C-alpha cells in the first residue's frame, strides 16, 4: 500500500529583488522586479507503508519545501500529492490527525509551560483516549527517558532533552506516518543513538512509515534502506542505500604519509597504468590514492613504498558521506552520476 504518492509536484516562489540606489528605491515603490524561483521542480515518488526513507539534499535543495507540501502547510503550485489517501492541503484538519511531524529547528511545545501540560493539551487536540494514552505514552516516555523532565517548562530544557520531548509530542496520537525534518540537528552522539534506536523500534512495532531529512549521513545509514536525493528541486537519485554504495562506492582509499614532501607528478609517474586518482590530504606530506580496482592495490602500495619513505599508511572504504559529496560536487542528473563514479 502506498502511503505517499507524489506526481510532478512543483512549488514556485515569487521573490522580489530591489533596485540599487536611491532612484531605484523610489522606482521600487511603484513597480517591483520579481523573479520566480522553482524550489521543487516536478518531482515524483511513492513511499510504501513501513518504509523508512531518507530524504537528503544540500541546503536549499527543496527538502523542507517538499515536507511542507506533504504535511499540508504549503499549497503546491502544480502536481498531485496524495498522503494517507488524502489531499493534505484540502482536508488539512482531518489529514493532520494521521501524521506526526518534528521540525528540528522549531519547537512545537509551549515555551512557558511544563512539558506535561503541552502533552495534555495535545492529547485533547488529537482526541486520544486515556487508555491509549497511558499504554502508548508510558512506553515512549520510558524509552526516551523523559520522565524527570515532564514537570519542567520547555525553556529550561537542554536541546537534547527538548528534542526527545518534541519526538514524544509528535507521537502522542501514534500516527502511522512520521515526518522528521532534521531531528538530530545539534544533538550529541548519545541522544542521537537513543533517537535512532527508538525510531527503529516504533517502525518495527507499529509499521510506522518514516520520512526523514537530515544532514547527518550516519542517521540515514543507521535507519534508512532507501534514500531519495534531491538537488536544485529535482530528484537525482531514488533507490536503496546499498545500491548507491555498491555501484558508486566500490573503490578504496589509501592514505600515505610520506617522510618528506612529494610531487604529484612523481606519484602519477609511479602509478602509471593503474586506475588511480591522487588527492592531497589534510596534513602535510599526506596523499590519498583513490583506487577503483581492488586487485591493483598491493601493486600500487609496493611501488610507492619502494620509491618513497613512508611514515604511516591506512586503507579506508569510501564513506557514504564522501559518495554523496562527490555526487553533489560533480553531477546533478542520473546519467552524469555514473560517469562521475566511473572516474573515481
Amino acid at each position: 500500500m502506498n502511503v505517499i504518492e507524489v506526481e510532478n509536484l512543483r512549488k514556485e516562489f515569487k521573490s522580489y529583488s530591489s533596485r540599487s540606489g536611491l532612484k531605484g528605491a523610489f522606482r521600487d515603490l511603484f513597480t517591483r522586479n520579481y523573479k520566480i524561483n522553482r524550489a521543487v521542480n516536478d518531482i515524483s515518488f511513492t513511499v510504501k507503508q513501513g518504509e523508512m526513507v531518507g530524504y537528503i539534499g544540500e541546503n536549499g535543495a527543496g527538502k523542507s519545501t517538499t515536507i511542507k507540501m506533504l504535511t499540508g502547510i504549503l499549497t503546491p503550485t502544480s502536481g498531485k500529492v496524495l498522503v494517507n489517501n488524502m489531499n493534505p492541503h484540502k482536508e488539512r484538519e482531518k489529514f493532520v490527525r494521521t501524521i506526526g511531524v518534528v521540525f528540528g529547528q522549531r519547537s512545537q511545545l509551549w515555551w512557558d509551560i511544563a512539558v506535561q501540560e503541552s502533552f495534555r493539551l495535545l492529547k485533547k487536540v488529537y482526541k486520544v483516549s486515556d487508555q491509549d494514552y497511558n499504554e502508548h505514552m508510558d512506553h515512549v516516555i520510558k524509552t526516551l527517558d523523559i520522565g524527570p523532565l515532564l514537570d519542567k517548562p520547555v525553556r529550561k530544557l537542554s536541546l537534547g532533552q527538548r528534542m526527545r520531548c518534541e519526538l514524544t509530542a509528535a507521537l502522542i496520537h501514534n500516527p502511522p506516518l512520521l515526518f522528521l525534518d532534521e531531528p538530530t540537528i545539534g544533538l550529541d552522539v548519545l541522544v542521537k543513538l537513543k533517537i535512532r534506536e527508538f525510531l527503529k523500534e516504533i517502525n518495527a512495532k507499529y509499521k510506522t512509515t518514516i520520512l526523514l531529512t537530515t544532514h547527518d549521513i550516519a542517521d540515514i545509514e543507521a535507519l534508512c534502506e532507501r534514500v531519495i536525493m534531491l538537488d536544485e528541486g529535482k530528484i537525482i537519485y531514488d533507490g536503496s542505500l546499498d545500491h548507491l554504495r555498491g555501484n558508486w562506492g566500490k573503490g578504496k582509499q589509501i592514505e600515505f604519509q610520506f617522510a618528506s614532501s612529494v610531487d604529484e607528478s612523481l606519484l602519477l609517474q609511479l602509478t602509471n597504468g593503474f586506475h588511480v586518482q591522487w588527492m592531497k590530504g589534510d596534513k602535510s606530506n599526506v596523499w590519498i590514492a583513490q583506487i577503483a580496482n581492488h586487485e591493483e592495490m598491493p601493486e600500487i602500495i609496493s611501488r610507492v613504498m619502494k620509491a618513497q619513505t613512508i611514515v604511516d599508511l591506512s586503507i579506508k572504504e569510501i564513506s557514504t558521506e564522501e559518495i554523496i559529496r562527490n555526487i553533489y560536487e560533480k553531477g546533478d542528473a542520473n546519467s552524469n552520476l555514473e560517469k562521475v563514479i566511473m572516474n573515481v
Partner: protein
Amino acid sequence: MSKYLEMIRIRFLMMLAYRTNYYSGILIYSINIGAYYFLWTAIYGGKESIQGLDAAQMVTYVAISWMARAFYFNNIDREIAMEIREGKVAVELIRPYNYLGMKTMQAFGEGVFRLFFFSMPGMVIVSFIFPLELPLDWQAWCFFAISIFFSFVINTEINLLTGISAFFLFNNDGLMRAKRVIIDLFSGLLLPISFYPVWAQEIMEYLPFQAISYIPSMIFTKGFQEAEITDAILFQLFWSILLIIPICAMWAVAKRKMIIQGG
C-alpha cells in the same frame, strides 16, 4: 470543543507564568483611571451635566471603560504577526484545529483571566477611591455582560484581521500601532462618542469601533435607556457577524500565498 477549553486553561497557566506583567498592568490601569478622573472633574467644574452625562456618571464611565478594556483587550494580532514572521505558523498548521479559532480561544482565556484577577478586584479598589455610581438592578448587569462579550468578539475579530495582514505586508507593525490608536480613540475609551461633533458621530455610526467600548460603558452608566440598549446590542451582533466575512476571505487567500520564513 474540549480542545478549545483546554487551550483556555493553558492560556491561564501562561498568564500565571508571567505574573510581573500582570502586576504592572494593574498599576498602569490605576494611573490611567486616576488621570482621567482628575481631568474630567476639572472639565465638569461646577457644571451639572455635559452631553447628557453628569459628573458621577462620567467617572463611572471612565472606570468601567478601562476595566472592560482589560477584558476585551488582547495581543493576538501581535502574536499572529510574530508567528508568521518567524515561521512558527508552520507548527500550528500541522495540528488538527482551526488556527484562528485557537487564537481566539487563547485570547478568551487571557480575557477571562484578566476579568477575574484584574478587572473585578480592580473595580472594587477603584470604587473605594472614587465616587462611582454602580447600577443597582440586575438587568443592567446582564446587558452589560452580554455587551462586553460582544466587545471582546469584535475587538478580537479586528485583531485577527490586522494579524493576518502580516501574510501580505512584510512588516505590519505600523498597521497594528495605528489600529490600537484608532480603537482607543473611536471606541469611546478616551472620549464618549456623544462628545464628538455631530458629523463625526454620523461617520462612526457606520464603523464597528463604538461597539467595543462606548456601548458597554453607556449601558453600565445608564446613559442608554431601554430601546437604546437593545438597538446597541443588535448593532454589536451585526458587526460581530459581518466581520467574519473579511476574516475568512483573507485567511483563504493567506493560506494559498503562505511562505514559511526561515526554512
